[in-house]
């Protein structure tokens, strides 16, 4: 399998996608090239490179045509297009960086054919902005250990294009409820109770656009759903150039495997809307008798969505955080300082008890 690295047309430096300018930038000479321009440039260069010189040499004397090999542990080894170093990658890697020369390495075969994404949301936040979003996330967390908060414990920050399946459909649903109204009144002789039994029928339809489901087993679904929503309206048609400088993965969960989760969420939203249309305060009791949902005009797209992953080490444990590369929304699990917890609990308990006691003395005594 071949590898690809975008080079600066001026100085030959490695081009990296910039989230600020939404262009490929050369860190060496500062040259900026649009994604479309570099694609055309690469195509021309590759076509001319393909023709090359026509010296007739004996086959087999050139480089080994197999550019990747599989190690015993299952990881694949690629050749860096810049330095020729061995770049290890797993089955789903689409884009990575060379550990020797830090050059971006894109594996075009991983995003071609059935693996070619329909859409991509380019990174809108750079690494600094992602760190800033994380710091903001930590602010105001009273139980967070101070050592965790102030020390530079961020061990790894990487921008990753995560594969998502986007499900769009027209959902139609029906729900039937058993409802009961009870009315009580009395006159001078009797106390009356009247129970009216109703059958409530609700039918509705709703359109959904681009419900995302994480298509990677490596990514935690809870983390990926927590950093939603992604604004798919700002997605671009996929081009390999957006991957340069970031890691990217291809899906390893098929759309058939992921559609269940999308259907679950769509069903919940539609059912909530149908149930909300029943004015429960008008009835003494409402129970669901039956329900059914059907989705039509279903469309599925494959997209790479930007996520910053931060790994922090604290007391021999790695804490993972994910930042939405488009909106900056952060999710994760922060450690709890037990001493701080006890201190706060006692303070709140003592303070609230004293305040309540004073209020009781003032108003009840």
């Amino acid at each position, binding site marked *: 399998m071949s590898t690809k690295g975008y080079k600066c047309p001026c100085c030959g430096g490695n081009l990296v996608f910039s989230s600020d300018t939404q262009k490929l930038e050369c860190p060496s000479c500062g040259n900026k090239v649009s994604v479309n321009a570099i694609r055309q440039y690469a195509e021309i260069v590759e076509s001319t490179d393909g023709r090359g010189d026509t010296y007739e040499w004996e086959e087999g004397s050139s480089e080994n045509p197999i550019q990747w090999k599989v190690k015993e542990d299952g990881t694949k080894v690629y050749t860096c297009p810049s330095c020729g170093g061995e770049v290890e990658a797993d089955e789903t890697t689409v884009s990575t960086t060379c550990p020797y020369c830090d050059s971006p390495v894109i594996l075009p075969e991983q995003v071609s054919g059935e693996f070619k994404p329909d859409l991509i949301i380019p990174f809108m936040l750079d690494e600094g902005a992602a760190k800033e979003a994380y710091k903001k996330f930590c602010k105001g967390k009273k139980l967070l250990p101070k050592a965790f908060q102030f020390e530079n414990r961020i061990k790894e920050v990487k921008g990753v294009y995560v594969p998502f399946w986007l499900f769009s459909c027209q959902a139609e649903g029906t729900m039937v409820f058993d409802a009961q109204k009870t009315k009580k009144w009395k006159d001078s002789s009797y106390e009356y109770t*009247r129970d009216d*039994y109703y059958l*409530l*029928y609700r039918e509705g339809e709703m359109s*959904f656009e681009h419900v995302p489901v994480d298509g990677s087993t490596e990514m935690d679904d809870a983390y990926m759903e927590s950093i939603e929503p992604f604004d798919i309206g700002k997605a671009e048609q996929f081009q390999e150039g957006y991957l340069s400088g970031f890691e990217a993965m291809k899906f390893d969960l098929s759309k058939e495997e992921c559609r269940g989760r*999308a259907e679950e969420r769509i069903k*919940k939203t539609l059912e909530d809307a149908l149930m909300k*249309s029943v004015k429960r305060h008008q009835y003494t009791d409402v129970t669901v008798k039956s329900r059914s949902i059907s989705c039509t005009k279903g469309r599925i797209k494959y997209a790479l969505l930007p996520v910053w992953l931060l790994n922090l080490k604290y007391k021999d444990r790695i804490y993972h955080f994910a930042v939405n590369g488009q909106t900056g929304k952060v999710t*994760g699990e922060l450690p709890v300082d037990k001493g701080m917890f006890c201190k706060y609990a006692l303070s709140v308990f003592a303070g609230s008890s004293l305040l309540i006691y004073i209020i*009781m003395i003032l108003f009840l005594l």
Partner: protein
Amino acid sequence: MMEEGQKMKRIRFFAAALVCLFMVNIMPVTASDEVNLPKVVDNAELLTEEEEAELTGLINTIVTEYETDVVLVTENQRQETDIQAEADMLFDSNGYGIGEEKDGVLFLVDMGAGEWSISTHGNTINLLTDYDINSLGETAARGYFSNGKFGAGFKNYLESLATKIESRKDYLAQSQSEGEESTDAYAGNNQSADNQTESSQTAGNQTEDSAPSDNSEAVNKTPPVRVETPKEPKSPVKYIIPALILGLIISAVYMAVIWLKMKTAYKQENADVYKCKDTSARIRKNEVLLTSDLRKVPIIQESRDTQENYSTTRYQESSKHQKQSKYKESRTTVHTSRSGEKHGGASGSFTQEKPKESTTVHTSRNGEKHGGGSGKF
């Protein structure tokens, strides 16, 4: 000499004025001294001397035990046209009543018109309900007076009166201890009634305590000493545990909230944010009434008088009265006499039945408020 004479006149004038002023201040006190007033005024000469003595003894016992003045009056011709006004007037103008509120009850029998009337005053208004007063008056009038048994009638009246006051005071003491007394009467009378109950109990206790050493001192003990007894539920110590429990709940909720904020990685429940905003959900509704079930349960409703023109005090009747379900809950109606005093009371004739559930309030000629009963016999 002339000037000295004028000075002396002036001094005498001022001295006389001071004496008058002093007398004015003293007069009501003297008048209110119930010890000097006759409790049995038999102007119609219906009672023998022995009966008068016996009734006076009974009255003194009630006065001592319950600190409520009790007066019996008979007459052949009354001054007021209305017998209730006459009873109120007799109570007010003669200065009957014990204590600051002039607690007392006067039973008037008018032989000329064949009517009777009972007038209550002060805290006694709350001790005797309309039903009680009517019951007392009607029992004496129909059971005894109509047969000419006035002595026995008054004796029966006094015994029943003592029983009713006793049961009412027991009820008030119980309600106060349970803190469940429901009062919708005007606050002043109720408060004074409660105070009276407390002071009566206190006085009663004191009487019991001092009885072994000096009975006469206990008997002559007037007026009642009001003792403010601290109420246990209002002790600040009692609020500590509830405050701690509430504090614990608040701190548990608060800590749970900030603990949960430490973890934000949760799965989404729905796909609300991915609904197409331009095409809102179209929901069709249908509601079908399947069946209706009507049940009716017979109820026994207690009769209640709901007149709102009078302030009332509701309470549970004593066990004796509970036999008559109609009077399980009763009330005391208050009226103002011409002298501006508040009275309870009822009246009736010896032959005519009066409504038992309410008390008519009226004002006596001197402006005192009275309730009462009168009747013919």
